[in-house]
């Protein structure tokens, strides 16, 4: 696959201003194609209205586009029904909502909740705090030497006290991928519900929630070429129906009386207030963009770039690649002997090369690896081999500067 740089206006704009811009930070957030930007401006400039109740043409059109976006998501994750697709403001918001509305009301002291050592803080702290609040136990499943969830340890930990298992599909720090299907099967066998953090999975493989059989799955649009402020919670219909509303307000009620309120049906029940309509429409356009290329194609492109990077960086002495063998990933973390990740990132930034240095919101993982920080590269459809060669040259320069 050719690089799709030309579809992303930021690169041409940077060039026009005489700035180099090589973007290796897509795991934090992807750049936006023109089609996504256009979808948003067309809404704001062409048919802007609130959704839900207006009888005039922009309201109808906005409501239609909002519904279409939901249906694109339904198709994208393979959900049975659009009722199973709840718009949130992002992954973090979605996870907090499940923790509050699904787990907390039934969690009791001595119950257990499982997460893994590789979780992003957003899929760690909400469960930890819920456990603290209720006196329940948070169990952190360790990783194998290949940096994936240790299934033997998971099996050994699962028992009937485990109410919930929250795991990421792909490590945002290392790129390694867990076997979600098996984890779900094991968890269901003891009656636990499973939430899958798919933030880094959406561009790595075609998601099929029915095959995965997970109870909840979440991701953010902004990592998928979509806008900020919008994310998805997929949930099995029966579970979403059973849960108390995620929040309360306009749009999610049926009848409001002084003493009680009855609630609307799914998905409205869990979406109080004016939604992020532009966000949903932008996400719809982002999914169209992804589908027009194909998730498998994107994943292949990214993995090839990672392989090439592994090849080149291994030629630099003192570079230490982490989870080097995670072959089909789009993320690659490394350190360099004697040079701190932040110094590396600052040097690269001065050359217009964007990477991330730090703990990547995975302090428990870094602690387990005995590292204070890494440099993280993450690849996407606008990257190419030449950029990786430039990265290599820059790293060699850094080495000799600090050497």
């Amino acid at each position, binding site marked *: 696959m050719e690089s799709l740089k030309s579809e992303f206006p930021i690169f041409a704009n940077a060039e026009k201003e005489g700035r180099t811009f090589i973007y290796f930070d897509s795991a934090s957030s992807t750049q936006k194609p023109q089609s996504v930007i256009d979808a948003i401006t067309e809404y704001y400039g062409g048919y802007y209205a609130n959704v839900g109740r207006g009888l005039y043409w922009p309201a109808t059109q906005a409501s239609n586009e909002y519904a279409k976006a939901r249906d694109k998501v339904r198709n994208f994750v393979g959900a049975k029904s659009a009722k199973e697709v709840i718009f949130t403001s992002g992954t973090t918001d979605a996870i907090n909502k499940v923790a509050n509305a699904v787990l907390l009301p039934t969690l009791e002291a001595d119950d257990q909740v499982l997460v893994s050592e590789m979780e992003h803080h957003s899929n760690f702290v909400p469960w930890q705090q819920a456990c603290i609040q209720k006196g329940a136990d948070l169990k952190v499943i360790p990783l194998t030497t290949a940096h994936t969830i240790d299934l033997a340890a998971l099996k050994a930990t699962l028992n009937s006290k485990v109410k919930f298992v929250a795991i990421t599909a792909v490590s945002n720090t290392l790129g390694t991928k867990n076997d979600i299907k098996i984890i779900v099967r094991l968890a269901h066998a003891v009656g636990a519900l499973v939430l899958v953090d798919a933030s880094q999975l959406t561009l790595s493989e075609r998601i099929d929630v029915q095959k995965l059989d997970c109870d909840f799955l979440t991701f953010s649009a902004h990592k998928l070429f979509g806008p900020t402020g919008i994310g998805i919670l997929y949930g099995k219909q029966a579970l979403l129906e059973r849960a108390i509303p995620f929040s309360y307000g306009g749009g999610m009620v049926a009848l409001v009386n002084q003493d009680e309120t009855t609630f609307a049906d799914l998905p409205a029940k869990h979406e109080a207030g004016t939604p992020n309509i532009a966000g949903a429409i932008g996400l719809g356009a982002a999914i169209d963009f992804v589908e027009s290329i194909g998730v498998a194609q994107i994943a292949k492109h990214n993995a090839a770039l990672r392989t090439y990077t592994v090849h080149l960086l291994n030629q630099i002495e003192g570079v230490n690649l982490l989870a080097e063998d995670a072959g089909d990933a789009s993320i690659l973390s490394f350190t360099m002997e004697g040079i701190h990740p932040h110094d590396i990132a600052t040097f690269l930034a001065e050359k217009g090369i964007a990477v991330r240095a*730090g703990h990547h919101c995975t302090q428990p993982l870094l602690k387990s690896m005995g590292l204070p920080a890494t440099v993280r590269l993450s690849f996407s459809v606008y990257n190419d081999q030449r950029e990786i060669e430039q990265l290599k040259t820059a790293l060699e320069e850094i080495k000799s500067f600090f050497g």
Partner: protein
Amino acid sequence: MTEKLKQLYKTQILKHAQNPFNEGKLEAYTHLIKAYNPVCGDQFDLYINIVDQRVIEASFTGYGCAISKASTSVLAKHILGKNKAEIAVFVADFLKLLDPNGPQPLEEITSDEELMAFAAAREFPERLSCANLAWLALVKELFPD
């Protein structure tokens, strides 16, 4: 290597990062100051021995980027012999050096090249928290609230 960047990592800073002043623990000390930046994982322990109101010894241990390490090293070196009032002025001046809206020319603040080198951080606001890490921790310890 851009000019801006060379400024940031001026020989002064690299020198301190690579050959820091008094790295190690003190045998006897009156203050142990823990400086930690959770955002990047940088972590330093600063040991200070104050006798008769004056700093007679200072050292540090820890791990961090070149900027944070050098700035900790420079701190340990320069507070030697100072009393609390002098430290207050000294730290305030250093923070002015880092402030993008701080005084110009730098000579208004200091004539010490080792300190002045850190003014390059004015161009790198993201690295501010590296350059002032140990300094803010010191202020917190010596001048609570």
